[in-house]
Each structure stands twice: as C-alpha cells, then as structure tokens.
C-alpha cells in the first residue's frame, strides 16, 4: 500500500435500505381515484371538514371518517412560494411556484405547482385549475396533474374562506 496516502480522518459508510413501501388505505383510495382522473376527499362527521387526500380518522377528533366526496379540480390559492433553488433529485425548471391550493368543496389544502402564470402575478385568492396529463398516461400518482394554472375567474376572498374553515373546528 502507498505510504504517501494521507492518514484516514473520515470513512465512507454508504447505506441503501430498500422498502416495499405501502401507503395505507386513505392514500391508496386517493391514488386509485386519481388514476381515473378524480380527486377524492373525505368528510369529518364531527366538523364537516373535507380532507384531501382522504384519511381514516379526523386529525381533530380522531373519529373514523368514511364519507368520500368527489372534488372539483378547480380551487383557490391560499399561500405559495417561489422556488429559485434546485435541490437533491429535483427535476423542475427554476424558478417555479408551488402553492397551497384549497380545492372547491375541500377544507384542507393540497400543495402543487402553479404554472402558466407569471411569477409576479401569483397571489393568494387566485382561482386555479388542474392541468392533467393525457389520460392515457394516468397512473396512481399525484403527477397525473402536471400543475395548476389560473382560470381567469375573479379572485376569491381567501381570508374569509380560511376563517370559515377555521370556524368549523371544535373547541
């Protein structure tokens, strides 16, 4: 062995753990529906709030939830972020915007990209609509929706909408 090598001060210990990952019942229901081009939520029996994706129990009351609700693929932007940095494994063109979007009929927000909208025109309250991949490409993935784009409809009063959602909470 070479005597001229530098002394060892650190070691490489790679880890690659494989999982046959199961996403559970709530998320599977959502993904199976999205494969058919549908967005599903579930209604909390106590608060009436509609969760998207569906969950088996309410995060507020722990009550079982089973009443599925089909949601519109239109919604309103609550808040958002403009990303100017590429990170680990990320393939998106920068800058890009992602937003918390409250779908019509839902109370929880989903996070997704907003495109076909100049960055400076992004705003809370903006109406957006999903842009789907061609239905021949649909799989059980959130990526069936490529992004959301502005609908051109008038803005909605986001503060009022969020206040209404919050008012549904118990206690």
């Amino acid at each position, binding site marked *: 062995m070479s005597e001229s090598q530098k002394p060892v001060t650190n070691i490489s210990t790679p880890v690659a753990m494989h999982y046959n990952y199961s996403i559970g019942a709530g998320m599977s229901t959502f993904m199976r529906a999205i494969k058919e081009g549908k967005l599903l939520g579930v209604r909390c029996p106590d608060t009436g709030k509609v969760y998207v994706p569906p969950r088996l129990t309410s995060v507020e009351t722990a009550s079982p939830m089973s009443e599925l609700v089909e949601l519109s693929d239109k919604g309103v932007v609550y808040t958002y972020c403009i990303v100017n940095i590429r990170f680990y494994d990320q393939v998106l063109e920068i800058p890009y915007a992602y937003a918390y979007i409250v779908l019509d009929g839902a109370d929880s927000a989903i996070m997704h990209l907003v495109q076909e909208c100049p960055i400076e025109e992004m705003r809370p309250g903006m109406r957006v609509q999903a842009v789907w991949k061609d239905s021949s490409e649909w799989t059980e993935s959130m990526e069936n929706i490529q992004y959301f784009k502005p609908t051109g409809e008038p803005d909605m009063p986001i503060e009022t909408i969020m206040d209404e959602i919050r008012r549904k*909470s*118990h206690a």
Partner: protein
Amino acid sequence: MREVAVIAFGQTPNRRRELALNEAEMLAPVVAEMLKGVGLSRTDVDFTCSGSSDWIAGYSFSWVTAMDALGAWPPIIESHVEGEAAWALYEAWVKMLVHEELEVALVYGFGRQSMSSPREVMAMMNDPYLETPLWPDTISQAALQARALLDAELCTERDFAEIAARNLRHAESNPLAQLSGQPDPAELLEEPTIASPLRKHDCPPITDGACAILLAAGDRARALCKRPAWIRGLAHRIDVQALGRRDLTRSQSARLAAEAAGAIGGKVDIAELHAPFTPQDWILQRELEIPESTVINPSGGIHQGNPMMGTGLVRFGEVAVRIINGEADRGVAHGTQGPCLQQNIVGVLEGE
C-alpha cells in the same frame, strides 16, 4: 411517590404483513377501542407519548403521522422516544409523578417491519464505524450470544427449543398471536440452523402491528378500572454495546434495572420477557431471578408477535391485563433494545 397504574391495553392482531393499513391507520382503532373500554374520550388524555423508529418506517418524523391519526386537537401535551415504546411508558410515568394535574396518559408504539428487511435495518443500530459497514444481521449477533451460553455449558439447544415451545403453547390461547402451536422440542431441534446454533423457532417473527397502553394516577385509576395494575417500580439501564466487550452469557443492565425496579424477590405470578431470541429468555430468567413458580410469557412472548418498536410495551400490557382481570396479583414486565439485550427496562406491576 404518586401512584400510577396501567388501566388498559390494546393491540392489533400481530401479522406478518398488514396489507391495507399504514402505521397510523393500524393504531387509531386500537386507541379508540381502548379509550372506549374505560369510558374515556380522546380529550381525557392529559399526556401522550410514543416510541418508533424512522428507519423501520422508511422516512424521517414517521411518528408525526401517527399523532395526526389520534386527533391532537385542541393541542396536546405530547412527546416521543426514538426506539422501543417501553421507554415512552417510562417518560409518561415520570411525567405523572411530577405533575399532579396529569391524570391519564396514553402510550403507544408501532412498526411495519414487513416493508423492509429487519435483519439489515437493525444492523444500523450498531457501531457505524466498526460494525455496520460489515452488515452483521440481528440473528447472527444473537447466535454469537447463544454460542457463548453453549460454550459455557450453561444451557443447551434443547433449552432454547423448550423456550420456543413454551411460548408457542402459551400463544395458543392468545387470539392476536402471530405464531402458536404445540411443537415437540425434539422435533424443533431437527430443523436446520439459520445462524448456528439458532433455528427459526429461536428467532422473532417479522410483524406489522401497533399497541397502546393507558396510564392513570391514584383515585382516577381506581375510578376508571376495578383493579388497576399499579406500577410499583420501573427502571432502565444500559450496557456497553460492543459484543466483544461483554460477557454475553449475562445481561448486567437487565439485572441492574430489575434491582432498581424492585423486581427481584417477592412473589412473581407472571413475567413477560422481551427476549427477541430464545437464549435471551434464558438469560433474563437468570438476571431477573424469576422464581420457578412464575408463568413466563403467558401471552406467547416474542412468538406472539414482534411489532417493533412496540414489542416491549406489549410485555407491559400483557402483564397489566392479567392483573386487571384478576388472573395474577403481581407481575414483572421487561423491554429491551439494542443488540443482545444491551438496554433493558423492567417494571413491577401489582393489583391491590
């Protein structure tokens, strides 16, 4: 010292692979049913504590998903231990000793080992410089301990098979058990070894599952439960990890924990030992000085199921329910984590 008791226990069936539900979805009905059983609601819980491992779940902050499934609103007082949930029980117990206003605590643990290869995942619990790079699996490590017992002529492979047979026999009366049966130890010994001298029956099953315990203090415990399982002592200790630095025929930390918990001496009707491998059951009997008359692992022990990181908490639950239902008066519960019984927690539970 304030009196704290286990007043209820619940667990999922122990399954090799849960097909439908994720951790949180497995746990939620267990907790709901347990609370209902004692007439409490979610908002009666004053403190919540859990144990789990992100590397078993496959992502960071995995326990947060479980907390969400239990209805943490209005905001709750909550904590989490990375590792075996029996230590979450310890945190809850300490918390209740200090804070008089905390009357009811919920403790839970869960794991879905089926998604990965636990023999490899748990290799990451070793020294990351000297051991993990070789990926020693859990069964091989336990086999080194088994060999040490055989070399010292303290016990035989037959003893290991007898322990497995005892667990499997006890598991027959446990509807939630993953494995059970009436095997003849002699026949078990005809099976091939996986890592000599250990055979399949000496090893823990791979389990998906969740479990939960409810603690209550003083008169609240008495009001909620006819016969609370009072925690008379609870203590934990740790050994050096490296197997080459230990007398593998012993578990010094198990003995120290048992002494500190007051588990040694006195009547022990039942004992639930968290011995992932049968030789460890033998070691624990010796270190905890379990009397001859004690029924060991009435639930089926590790063969009942191994929902890591809840397996140790299940031991506390299985002792507690037998006290609560009057089958036993006093019992010892034990939990462990780390290779070859490195870290141990021991509790003494007693009915009034």
